[in-house]
């Protein structure tokens, strides 16, 4: 068995792992990565990126359906779902190749295979060939997460699918029940609905996108319902059984017959089969317990990304990857500011948020002022024909501190960063309103919502 020595071994090459590996290499460390799938992890291959490609298709289909609104009369068109999936695969392939290119550029060695900890900083890689041993000064674990299911429901990726199956679906079903109205659930609901699938969105909590601000949930429910998506909130799935055209979802009384069921009830950290127990890594509620510099309870062993705890977001994993790399290189990185991680959902209308919801800010005892501005009053949004949604700004009444911002509407996921930067710099409402926003832009709505929080909105 061949033994190789590196400064750092990164296990898993998703957005956390590959960023951490590159940052380590930039800091002059010799780096090996271990990957049992393709470089890029779930994000590039099966998650963020291919779904964004599908959602773009969904958007184009929706636009074509509304061509008449623009005075464009089409004599019918055919939207091929298999080709949409093929396009999303090409996009994913291109991004995964990009990661391989970055590894070569940064002289990072990729070991294909499954990595297991043999000692604190010794990783054994079992691939197609002979096993290899990697010895390192530090190991970064970045093995990510996998879809969860409900008790008693097996994901077969045919009738009962997870997001992994959904991005591989070769054809669109006639009907689908999406269980879970979080980010993954509402994004696929959007894609399938755009392709004419009869979608029923099921959520156990009282509202869709339950971690978002209540007003955002209401607006999404309104637009989804208008698009023909059936929403059932506050429902408990008692069982999913084969039957009818595919499966029967038992809602404890009501039974729902659908061709496919998409399980989108959350993700669980991948922490088994890595040899964590052998070296004594402590877990906490199913995730690896880490320090502010991402070190586990075992010295020299780091964990980042989904496996290291919520929020399970690629950009949070990337930020943690950088922190881990810099800590390993002996620098003193600023820890990730978990209170300032933007959250983005790419359904239509898009949803983006940062900081506290209005309810949470009030629970925390803050006296808040709230500003709201609808896209119907924004010139650019009207010109685009994308007037659903609004921007809501929640600020501390006394200081103008920006406690939270919630956007639902066109390009919400791009607009949010103005507030992310603002919050990092500890800007208050005043600095935002003294920033001239170009006209006409969707970002003007950000300015207006901020003005509204001070009772000074101009255009409403």
């Amino acid at each position, binding site marked *: 068995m061949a033994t190789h020595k590196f400064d750092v071994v990164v296990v898993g090459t998703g957005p956390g792992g590959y960023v951490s590996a590159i940052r380590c290499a930039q800091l002059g460390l010799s780096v090996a990565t271990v990957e049992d799938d393709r470089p890029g992890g779930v994000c590039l291959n099966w998650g963020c990126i291919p779904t964004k490609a599908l959602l773009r298709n969904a958007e184009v289909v929706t636009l074509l359906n509304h061509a008449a609104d623009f005075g464009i009369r089409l004599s019918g068109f055919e939207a091929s779902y298999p080709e949409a999936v093929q396009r999303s695969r090409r996009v994913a392939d291109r991004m995964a190749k990009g990661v391989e290119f970055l590894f070569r550029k940064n002289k990072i060695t990729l070991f294909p295979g499954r990595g297991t900890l043999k000692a604190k900083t010794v990783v054994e890689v079992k691939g197609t060939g002979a096993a290899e041993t990697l010895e390192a000064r530090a190991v970064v674990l970045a093995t990510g997460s996998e879809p969860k299911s409900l008790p008693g429901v097996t994901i077969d990726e045919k009738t009962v699918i997870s997001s992994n199956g959904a991005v591989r679906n070769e054809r669109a079903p006639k009907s689908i029940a999406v269980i879970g109205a979080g980010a993954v659930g509402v994004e696929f609901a959007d894609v399938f609905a755009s392709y004419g699938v009869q979608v029923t969105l099921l959520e156990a909590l009282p509202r869709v996108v339950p971690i978002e601000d209540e007003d955002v949930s209401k607006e999404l429910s309104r637009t989804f319902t208008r698009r023909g998506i059936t929403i059932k909130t506050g429902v408990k799935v008692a069982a999913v059984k084969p039957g009818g055209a595919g499966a029967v979802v038992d809602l404890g009384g009501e039974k729902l017959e659908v061709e496919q069921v998409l399980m989108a009830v959350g993700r669980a950290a991948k922490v088994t089969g890595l040899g964590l127990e052998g070296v004594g890594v402590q877990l906490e509620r199913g995730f690896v317990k880490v320090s502010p510099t991402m070190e586990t309870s075992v010295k020299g062993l780091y964990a980042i990304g989904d496996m290291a705890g919520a929020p399970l977001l690629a950009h949070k994993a990337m930020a943690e990857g950088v922190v881990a790399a810099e800590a390993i290189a002996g620098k003193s990185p*600023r820890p990730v500011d978990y209170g300032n991680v933007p959250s983005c959902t790419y359904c239509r209308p898009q949803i983006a948020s940062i900081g506290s919801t209005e309810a949470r800010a009030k629970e925390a005892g803050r006296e808040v002022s709230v500003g709201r501005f609808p896209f119907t009053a924004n010139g650019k949004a009207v010109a685009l024909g994308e007037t659903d949604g609004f921007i809501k700004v929640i600020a501390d009444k006394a200081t*103008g501190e920006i406690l939270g911002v919630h956007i639902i509407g066109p390009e919400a996921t791009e607009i949010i960063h103005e507030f992310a930067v603002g919050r990092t*710099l*500890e*800007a*208050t409402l005043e*600095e935002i309103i003294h920033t001239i926003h170009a006209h006409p832009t969707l970002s003007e709505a950000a300015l207006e919502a901020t003005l509204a929080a001070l009772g000074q909105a101009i255009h409403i």
Partner: protein
Amino acid sequence: MAVTKVVMPKLSDAMESGKIIKWLKKEGDRIQGGDILAEVETDKADVEMEAFGAGVLRKILVPAGETAAIGALIGVIAEPGDDIGALVASAAVGGAGAGSGAQKTPLRAEPAPAPPTPAAPPASSPAPAIPTSAPAAPVARPAAVVSAPAAVPAGLGQGTPGARVKASPLAKKIAAQTGVDLRLIQGSGPGGRIIRRDVEAAGSSAAPAAAAALPAAVAGAEFEDVPLTQIRAAIARRMPLSKAPVPHFYVTSEVAMDQAWELREQLNALEGQPKISVNDLVIRACALALLTHPGVNASLQGDAIRVFHRVHIGIAVALEDGLITPVLRDCHAKPLAQIAVEARDLAERARNRKLRAQELSGATFSISNLGMYDVTEFSAIINPPEGAILAVGSVRRVPVVDETGLGVGRRMMLTISCDHRVMDGAMGARFLQDVKRLLEEPLRLLV
């Protein structure tokens, strides 16, 4: 736009209240953040007060000549349309009352302005006057003095005097609202930027505002009570806080100053070089010796001894009505000429009351020199939370006996006062020995 409360800022470690000397802006003036609003007399110096918010100076609540506790509302900046009625009304019963109440206490045995009834002439009923003002003027709490250094680390982040304070907009607002002086805070953000948590930490460790004005007793005709100036009040308040809880011990040593004297004359004969005083030589010697004896450059902080890596020396400067100790920072890193120039500048500005607030805090050691008063030797009181102070006597011509017999030499007495909780006699003695050696072989001060 937000309404900005203008509060009496905390401009030095020991400051508890400040007197408005004059307002540089008047009601109705438009204010930008950073504008100088007023001049404030604190316990140590006259300091300019900056505006943190922008808008119009709508209301001045504490007029020139009156005193306000730190944190008390003294004015309001807002846009013309903003309703400030409630804020002004709340100030009338709260913060501002503390200051004006103190001022209203009779200071001299003057006949009171004709009272409506002759039944209660002020001289015959002093008692009610004092209790009324007492709640507004609580006795200074020792905690205020002891805890202040925690909020004001010795290595002040905003090193260069007059430099722009790097702070986030939110930090500035919270500071303005809570009366925390940003210039006295070390920032923990990128590049030392002051962020919210720094201000909040400073706000919670600083003692709540307390009015400093001491109620004066009503006097009889045979004597006169001179009201305490801010500076005298501060000395009166702080010195017992040192002498009582800090167990002082003293070590005295005589230094042969012949060579130092000669070197100084040679240096001062050089054209284009700053004039060097004996005190400058002592400062330099102490700075070097403190580096080798960090245990003396130390301070008791609750259950730990904080040993400072940098040497900031407080130089006692006598004023007509008291004494002030401006701080010469980073003495260990400064050559003699620079020490001379900066020490002279500090002393001059101290006499003219033109010191900046940040020049009055953060000393790790102090020197008090009474040499100009023909003093053989004396002992000084430690200025907490510092761990030691050096008292410097005059350089005297005295008869000395050496190998050749009886001659005349120049001698100077040094007495160090040390906090026995921080160090022991031997440590003080070894430090003093080094200072003596440096002064007796003064070329060492130049290398």
